[in-house]
């Protein structure tokens, strides 16, 4: 009977540090785990005593890739806690910012992290020699998102002007034109990306699970607002986020796991696609049909394909938002100076607020309890990768027995690719409740 030992230390091409450990003895799967070895960072602990007006500055540092998403979830939680309602213009610009981040992150993931696997090389570096135009296109697309974030919020890694209350700097007319120009130009590269993706062969593997994401009754593909929903029919208000995340204890683990109706669930692009594909931009729907992606898709490797579809959606919806803004004009009276709210520009009261935002890897929750001075007394952040870990393990457990006829190297690669397909962002271990410690 077959014995397999997989021990991938420092899983590469994912964000943050994780190890895969698989042990098959006499054809029987004994261990199958994704272990997180990231140094804990204690953000929730460090937020205590900080003003609600500086929270987003701190929490965006949880993750460099989803810095805008963390800051948006943080701002939403803060505003919810003190009872502040942002203007429609602010919401529009925040949606646009979130699109840019998703687009940027998806492009990075598709090209630099996943494509090397599908093209049979170890990283994008050798691709510079063999596929120089592909690498250049990826970097160009990424830079476009980056340049737009520079214009809109000062920079992509840790946005500057997007804060509690609104924006400290609003785009001038020429800025809107410049951003639109970038986006129009990106369409050609996006078409090439779709064409390339159509040639890539994703591994075949199916496991039906529960897919969780924001849902709403509006016509729009929900990213920045909505309730928490699942393909099994769950619907919860965002204040009840704990019921949708870390409520359950697993007997074999000292730490809690995430589950909802079943043993585990998936969040991220594929989950959103499975829940809300009917609300995608028509062009994105076209692409989905062209590459044969249909809800409900149960192959986790196709998370990358869902990211591609979402990229098209983000690009097109961003163009619509900007064209709209160009028509209506920007109200510059809404520009705000807050600092630590020294001048009391924004009224503050004690409260408890939740932010729930769809970031590239799935729903991100921030929850703050603040006192009547706007100082944080309790903080909780639940990141998408944490919610996915349990599901990744369940996938691995189903996958390993199915591929036992392959060599150790092939099994290892299949597992690495599976984990990478989820685009895990382990460095945001702000709050990794579901770490498992075996053999300790």
């Amino acid at each position: 009977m077959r014995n397999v030992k997989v021990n991938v230390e420092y899983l590469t091409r994912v964000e943050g540090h994780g190890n895969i450990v698989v042990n098959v003895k006499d054809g029987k799967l004994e261990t199958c785990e994704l272990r997180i070895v990231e140094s804990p960072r204690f953000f929730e602990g460090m937020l205590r005593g900080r003003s609600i007006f500086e929270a987003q500055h701190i929490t965006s540092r949880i993750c460099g890739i989803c810095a805008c998403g963390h800051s948006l979830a943080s701002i939403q939680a803060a505003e919810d806690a003190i009872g502040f309602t942002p203007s429609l213009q602010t919401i529009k610009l925040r949606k646009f910012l979130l699109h840019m981040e998703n687009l940027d992150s998806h492009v990075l993931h598709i090209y630099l992290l996943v494509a090397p696997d599908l093209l049979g090389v170890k990283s994008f570096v050798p691709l510079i020699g063999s596929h120089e135009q592909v690498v250049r296109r990826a970097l160009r697309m990424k830079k476009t998102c980056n340049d737009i974030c520079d214009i809109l919020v000062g920079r992509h890694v840790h946005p500057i002007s997007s804060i509690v209350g609104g924006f400290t700097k609003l785009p001038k007319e020429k800025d809107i034109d410049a951003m639109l120009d970038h986006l129009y130009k990106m369409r050609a590269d996006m078409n090439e990306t779709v064409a390339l993706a159509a040639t890539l062969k994703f591994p075949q593997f199916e496991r039906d699970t529960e897919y969780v994401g924001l849902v709403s009754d509006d016509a729009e593909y929900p990213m920045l607002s909505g309730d928490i929903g699942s393909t099994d029919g769950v619907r919860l208000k965002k204040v009840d986020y704990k019921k949708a995340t870390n409520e359950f204890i697993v007997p074999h683990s000292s730490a809690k796991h995430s589950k909802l109706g079943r043993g585990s669930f998936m969040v991220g692009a594929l989950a959103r696609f499975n829940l809300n594909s009917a609300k995608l931009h028509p062009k994105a729907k076209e692409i989905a049909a062209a590459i044969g992606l249909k809800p409900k898709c149960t192959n986790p490797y196709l998370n990358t394909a869902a990211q591609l579809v979402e990229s098209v959606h983000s690009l097109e919806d961003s163009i619509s938002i900007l064209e709209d803004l160009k028509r209506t004009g920007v109200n510059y009276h809404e520009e705000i100076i807050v600092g630590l709210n020294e001048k009391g520009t924004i009224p503050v009261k004690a409260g408890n607020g939740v932010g729930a935002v769809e970031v590239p890897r799935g729903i991100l929750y921030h929850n703050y309890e603040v006192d009547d001075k706007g100082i944080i007394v309790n903080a909780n952040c639940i990141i998408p990768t944490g919610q996915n870990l349990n599901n990744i393990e369940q996938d691995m457990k189903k996958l390993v027995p199915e591929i036992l006829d392959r060599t150790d190297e092939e099994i290892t690669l299949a597992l690495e690719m599976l984990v990478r397909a989820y685009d895990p962002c382990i460095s945001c271990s702000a709050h990794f409740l579901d770490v498992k410690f075996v053999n300790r």
Partner: protein
Amino acid sequence: MTRPKVAFFDFTCCEGCQLQVANMGEALVDVLNLIEVVEFREAMSEKYDGELDLAIIEGSITTPHDVERIKKIRARSKAVLAYGSCATIGGVNGMKNAFDLNDIRKYVYGKDYEKFDTQETRAVHQVIKVDYFVNGCPVYIPEFVTVLKAVLAGLPYAVPDHAACLECKLNENVCMYDKGIGCLGPVTKAGCNSWCINNGNICYGCRGMVTNPAVNGARDVLTKYNIPMDMIVNKMNMYNKCREIDQNAKR
């Protein structure tokens, strides 16, 4: 000509500074032609354990395992570059040092807190010798390129040691203090082209404090604008808490 061997290593951090490299766009292809990147975990599967010409370190040192790892990297690297605030000054991770370590572990991880190894956050130079510093959260790419050129030429690089206000003035921003808002520009090292203030926000001090801050001048400004000192000190500790370790070492 053999290209210098360069590797990126990440410690406790958000990896945003590494991402700034990818954000260089197509210019990155030219940089990659000048150096040989032998390890960059976030972007490559390749691993390398030989001698390095340059180790670029991102993140601060927060666990016993980090300490062991960074010492090994130092031993096989001709030059070490601390990259970003986490590495150069401890950065936001330093805020942890304001709390009792066991308390903060319990707060975040509950009863299983002992499994989460941690120790006082330290900047890289507080553990090993560092040859080059690129400050910022995240790093400012034009400065990184300048430093990379210095490294390639074997020249030292002096981190700017004057206040961020200088660049802010050159950029003709209206001073935040004139808007009644506290800003850390007067005590923070320049070099980012007053990035945050240009975008309507304040300076949070991410590049670290200047060696000789004009303490009295700063105090006068705070008094004049009626901004409480403890608020400014609290703000300063967002990035600069680890500097107390250097101060204690000097004593």
